[in-house]
């Protein structure tokens, strides 16, 4: 399977500040990758570089093309939602569909219209008359009707009601994604995407601190509810995070190579898979880097 995005020592500096610090990663086709990191960690910069929106140093190939010099060609197969509410206020629903149908060879008008028929959007409506949720619905209708090989979503649901957010990801999974497509998502709301992701990439201070598939993460990280009397034994196994829930200590362990074994951990107490959010918090604390 060929790589959709391949980065080798990708670097981006803004003056003296290094936003992306020589990162390497590969995203194969047919995956849904979550690029997760705090504000200013370099995740949006990485995506911008991949979309040919900014110059950068190092090597980066997207669908085999260089986004710096072959952007026009690349955009035939790549689509992105960069932020919510970036559709221009004067745009009407029917004009938006006409325009995208006119300029995009891979746009399926029927699909967009079918999707819009399921919303409260009307063909004559202008973006300025819509709520934020409706704008995202329109944007998603346009983007989902494009048969792109790579879809990049940068904080696509920022500032939306929970109902719209749930629906957004549900539509994405049910009506859009298939094995020929690749989706890269950045978001703050880890818990919302963790069930649809196939891969995770944690990024901090311009560096990738964790890149693994969800299965690998499930195998590697274990959360244990440790009773008081076994706490010192548990601490000896070097947990990467600890917190207290209802008076009980919950410890997070890296059970990968060189870490504690599953049997050791099972002896300490009740084990379960940690949520991506907990893993994220633990990773970003700096105890593991």
């Amino acid at each position, binding site marked *: 399977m060929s790589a959709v995005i391949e980065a080798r020592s990708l670097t981006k500096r803004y003056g003296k500040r290094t936003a992306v610090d020589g990162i390497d990663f590969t995203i194969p086709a047919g995956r849904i990758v979550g690029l997760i990191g705090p504000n200013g960690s370099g995740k949006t910069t990485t995506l911008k570089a991949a979309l040919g*929106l900014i110059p950068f140093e190092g090597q980066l190939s997207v669908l085999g093309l260089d986004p710096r010099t072959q*952007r026009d060609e690349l*955009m035939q197969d790549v*689509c992105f939602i960069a932020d919510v509410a*970036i559709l221009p206020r004067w*745009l009407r629903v029917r004009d938006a569909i006409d325009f995208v149908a006119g*300029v995009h060879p891979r746009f399926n008008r029927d699909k967009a219209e079918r999707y819009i028929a399921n919303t409260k959007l009307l063909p004559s409506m202008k973006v300025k008359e819509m709520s934020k949720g409706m704008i995202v619905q329109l944007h998603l209708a346009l983007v989902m009707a494009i048969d792109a090989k790579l879809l990049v979503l940068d904080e696509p649901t920022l500032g939306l009601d929970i109902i719209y957010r749930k629906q957004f990801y549900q539509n994405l999974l049910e009506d859009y994604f298939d094995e020929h497509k690749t989706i890269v998502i950045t978001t703050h709301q880890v818990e919302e995407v963790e069930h649809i992701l196939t891969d995770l990439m944690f990024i901090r201070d311009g560096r990738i601190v964790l890149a693994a598939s969800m299965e690998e993460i499930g195998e590697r990280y274990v959360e244990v509810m440790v009773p008081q009397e076994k706490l010192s034994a548990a601490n000896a196994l070097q947990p990467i995070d600890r917190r207290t829930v209802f008076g009980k200590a919950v410890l997070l362990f890296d059970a990968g190579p060189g870490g504690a074994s599953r049997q050791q951990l099972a002896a300490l107490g009740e084990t379960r898979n940690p949520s991506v959010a907990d893993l994220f918090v633990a990773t970003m604390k700096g105890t593991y880097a």
Partner: protein
Amino acid sequence: MSTNNGADTMKWLLRREFWEHKGSMFWAPLIVGALLVVLLGCTITYGIIAHGIPAHVTINGHTLQHPRLDALLPDETRMMVGMITRGMYLGASTPLFAILTGVVFFYCLGALYDERRDRSILFWKSLPVSDPLTVVSKAVTALIVAPAITLALAVVASLTLLSIACMVLSTQGLNLFAALLASPDLYLSPLRLAALLPVYVVWALPTVGWLMLVSSWAKSKPFMWAVGVPVVSLVVIKWINAALENFSGQTLLLAHYANDVVARILAGIVPGIWFVFQGHGPAGMRPAGNGADMSALVPQSYLSLAGFDAWIGVVLGIAMLYAAIRMRRWRDEG
């Protein structure tokens, strides 16, 4: 797939610009044109009905009788019709062209700035539409589409006024319809206006290029930058020049051109500005015995393209548009 795509994409880009600016490019001139028709139409009607046409006018020794005017005095009738036609064209098109100047100015200033301000540029850039094509579509909208719409509306307004005038005259017994339909001015005037469009494009290019460059570059207040930079540089150059003259008696060579450059950069989009740049007003615009002579406007306008001046502006305008394309391609929108 991608071979005929360029032309097709351009068509949609032009349509998009029109959707966004329908208000200023179509409705504003339409409403003003309609107001002009009503106001001028009423004035003409009132003037003719209240004062009437003198029952007996003597021209060249002939006593004029309205119903047979055409037969008796073919030359005078033709002249009169020609005068009325030209008068209507000037009357209706001048205010519309004034509006066009403002519309094109602010359109260019906002063309590459508004999409950055509301971040919709990221939506446009998510589609397979290249930066050169986008910028060119905006320049074409400013240079050709907006002027062509204004031109068409000016012709419609003029023809409406003309029919009103003839109709009112006919109620007074003076029927000019036949003479009007036979008058070459009726058919040539719209063509003459249309023929001026290429001249307009040439002279407007440096201004459109400059405004769109500022539009693609300014972080905020594009108007201040677009007007401020040329005006402040002009003042500074003048000041240095004056100081130099005082001290050494020498003047900057630059100072001689500064006025022209600033005028070309900011005022190129005014229709007919080329007569001013030529250093003399258009002879045709001066009230001659038989009203403005519009037929002379076209050759005189094309004559303005003979010098280097016009083409230096074209080269600079295209260079600035190219810079705007680069700016749109690489500008980081944060």
